[in-house]
């Protein structure tokens, strides 16, 4: 438990992906079975205990130091699990701290009434980092900035395997994953992936622009719209039906409407959308349905989910991935023609005769539900990962707005001495009855990339020279610098002060030439709303 606690502790302070990977790999190599398997389960969200209720932890704390001191402590720290971990004192007489395996296996067997006593014994035996990790595990929120995919990547790395091979077998495995580690580290055979509802690693596209297209022969490619939802895999085999995200995360729980509609045996690649009548709803609507373990009937009714199919990977037990795109497409169309399916439809091919024609079609397409075009080589098989050559994404040109820099924050790692995270705003009337025309800036977004290294050095210097106020790592700057911000979409948001949220914002240009007063207004942005 202590080693796992140190891992979580380090991860929680580390921002760089590559460093996070190193930390997880180092732990997975050194930790014994079954601890490392339980750790991997915890990091991939695969552990489920009867969670410890906040009231239980609060009660422990008050019992230990009294109500008043506990209230002062909690008020200062701001996190219940952390407060309890810090105020508790290690009891040297409590014996050795439990291993992670012991913690998980005990909790899985313990009844609700036994849990408090067990928990106290462990709190006595662990150090404060250990207690913090234990309580985080128990309250079900690790929040150390590690996605399931990153944890799988780390596991794959210790065996020198591509992450796709781990993802492919993942859903046939159960914690603590002994066969996985035996394969990765001991040279044992690779665990099989033929369990029902297995995830097949998806094929991904590389970005391309108009100029790069000219070296390609349009006759070799098929085009289809790139829908603005999330890429998913519908997998049904051996009676097991699942919906996976692109990273192999099982999201079936949030989409029972899709899972119930699966009445076939096959694996399909598609785009998950919210669809009302014939219209694809804005991405924001889909977002309401994501990241939920369960979903209310109201949500199901008001935000009905739908999968628009791109490709077929397996059908009635037959693996089609080796076939060229055209043949897979023929299978897909024939299969769709067999029966109407309420929750599934086909993403249509876009016919074109040359790149100029396709460019025109791309320009003319104004629908909000479309992010751009996909180009797929007609003769290519379905290849895991992001191979160079067969698939391209040709995104729509981004929307642009001229915004004023308001705050800058220092980055991490290589960027720790640079102000590299920028919050920018647009103008709006200073108050609802601002008859005198006074205006103020309302923050509309935050971006930390899009600029070159040279531009970053310039921005950093500008921030240092124009600081008007400091709040910890954040500097407020003079409202003088205009940044052209590119973004892929815009939606209304009640969480943002300005009432709008930008999708995927990045700095596209520094407009040293433009006076701040001429930057865009929040009203200008609202006009871009679909």
């Amino acid at each position, binding site marked *: 438990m202590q080693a796992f606690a*140190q891992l979580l502790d*380090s991860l*929680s*302070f*580390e*921002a760089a992906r590559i*460093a996070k990977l*190193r*930390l997880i790999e*180092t732990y997975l190599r050194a930790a014994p079975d079954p601890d490392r398997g339980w750790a991997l389960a915890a990091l991939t969200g695969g552990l489920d205990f009867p969670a410890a209720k906040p009231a239980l932890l609060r009660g422990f704390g008050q019992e230990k*130091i*009294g109500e*008043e*001191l*506990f209230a*002062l*402590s909690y008020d*200062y*720290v*701001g*996190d219940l699990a*952390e*407060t309890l971990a*810090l*105020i508790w*004192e290690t009891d040297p007489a409590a014996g050795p701290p439990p291993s992670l395996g012991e913690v998980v296996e005990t909790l899985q067997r313990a009844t609700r009434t036994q849990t408090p006593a067990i928990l106290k014994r462990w709190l006595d035996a662990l*150090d*404060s980092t250990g207690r913090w990790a234990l309580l985080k595990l128990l309250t079900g929120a690790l929040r150390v900035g590690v996605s399931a995919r990153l944890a799988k990547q780390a596991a794959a790395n210790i065996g020198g395997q591509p992450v796709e091979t781990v993802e492919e077998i993942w859903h046939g495995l159960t914690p603590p994953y002994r066969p996985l580690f035996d394969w990765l580290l001991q040279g044992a055979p690779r665990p099989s992936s033929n369990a029902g509802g297995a995830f097949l690693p998806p094929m991904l596209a590389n970005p391309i622009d108009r100029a790069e297209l000219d070296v390609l022969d349009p006759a070799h490619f098929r085009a289809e719209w790139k829908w603005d939802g999330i890429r998913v895999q519908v997998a049904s085999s051996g009676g097991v039906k699942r919906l996976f995200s692109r990273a192999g995360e099982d999201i079936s729980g949030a989409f029972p409407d899709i899972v119930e509609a699966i009445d076939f045996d096959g694996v399909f690649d598609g785009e998950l959308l919210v669809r009302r009548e014939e219209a694809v709803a804005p991405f924001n609507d889909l977002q309401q349905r994501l990241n939920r373990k369960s979903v209310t009937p109201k949500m199901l009714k008001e935000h009905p989910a739908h999968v628009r199919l791109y490709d077929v990977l397996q059908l009635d037990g037959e693996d089609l991935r080796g076939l060229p795109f055209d043949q897979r497409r023929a299978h897909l169309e024939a299969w769709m023609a067999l029966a109407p399916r309420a929750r599934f439809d086909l993403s249509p091919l876009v016919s074109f005769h040359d790149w100029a024609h396709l460019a025109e079609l791309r320009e003319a397409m104004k629908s909000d539900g479309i992010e751009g075009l996909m180009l797929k080589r007609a003769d290519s098989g379905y290849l895991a990962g992001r191979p160079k050559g067969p698939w391209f994404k040709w995104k729509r040109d981004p929307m642009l707005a001229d915004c004023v820099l308001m705050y800058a924050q*220092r980055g*991490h*790692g*290589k960027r*720790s*001495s640079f102000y590299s995270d920028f919050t920018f705003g647009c103008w709006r009337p200073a108050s609802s009855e601002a008859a005198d025309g006074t205006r103020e800036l309302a923050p509309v977004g935050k971006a930390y990339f899009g600029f070159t290294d040279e531009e970053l050095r310039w921005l950093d210097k500008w921030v240092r020279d124009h600081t008007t106020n400091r709040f*910890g*790592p954040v500097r407020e700057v003079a409202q003088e610098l205009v940044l052209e911000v590119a973004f892929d979409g815009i939606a209304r948001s009640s969480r943002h002060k300005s009432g709008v949220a930008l999708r995927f914002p990045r700095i596209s240009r520094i407009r040293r030439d433009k006076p701040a007063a001429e930057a865009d207004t929040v009203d200008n942005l609202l006009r871009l709303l679909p």
Partner: protein
Amino acid sequence: MATDTLNPRSWLYPTPRGLYCEPGDFYVDPAVAVPRAVITHGHGDHARPGHRASLATPETLAIMRTRFEDMPNTVQQPLAYGESVRLGEVDVRLAPAGHILGSAQAVLAFKGQRIVVSGDFKRRPDPTCPPFEPVPCDVFITEATFALPVFHHPSDAGEIGKLLRSVDTFPERTHLVGVYALGKCQRVIKLLRAAGYDKRIWLHGALLALCKLYQDHGIDLGDVAPVSDAILETFRGAIVLCPPSAMADRWSRRFADPVAALCSGWMGVRARARQRGAELPLVISDHADWPELTQTLKDVGAPKVWVTHGREEALVHYARSIGIDAEALHLAGREEEGA
């Protein structure tokens, strides 16, 4: 020891210039320049320049001379630990506080009543100064920087172990360790040496003068060198000490993908560590944590306790719960930094 009739507040009380001892006509750690000061230790919020006369341990006076351009206009009165001197009608003695080199508690006796102004202190061993000496007294004035039950500073060796483990895990990165120039810096070097780290430790220019002063006082820091002297040095895998402010400064750009480590008692609370931008927070503090503070109240056995700078509320609450007559004492010019 006590006289029942004498109110301690009648002869030692806070003023806007600092804590004033009337029958001795001196201030303890005043916030502004005064005619006569008694200084507990060399940190900037306790030792200030410009007093006409300063009484302190010889080590503290040496630190003040280093920081304040030799203080030619201040009459310096060294008082070694354990020695006594009479100022006006008050007997003054300095007892070790265990905080940094030269740090002392001011033990003040007047008409048979004894008040101890502890300044900043800690109870755990520190290789750079003698340990805190509990002095029985009528009134104990305690700091409260970390006076909440959440502050249990872990073992120094464990925290240094974290740093060395990170150096092993990221051997290609520079470990940039943020330390205060006085006390923390030299203690961290000594702790690294005690953990068997015998490689060169690199120093930011702002740390040099005080490291030299510690070495002149017989504290062996091993192989240390200024970053500015480095020739053909990549600093990969190196440990570099600097003031916390330098980590955000352009100065730090010479290092390859640095790991930002910060040494302070505040690092025990995650939100604080994040706020300060620490990637590797190390809980190494020169202040007493909650168990040390509460133990100290029991050790000195004072019936009255005045609590200053920090989280007075919690410590006052605790002291009263064990029957001590405790109250908060608000002093001008105290800061949180340097903890």
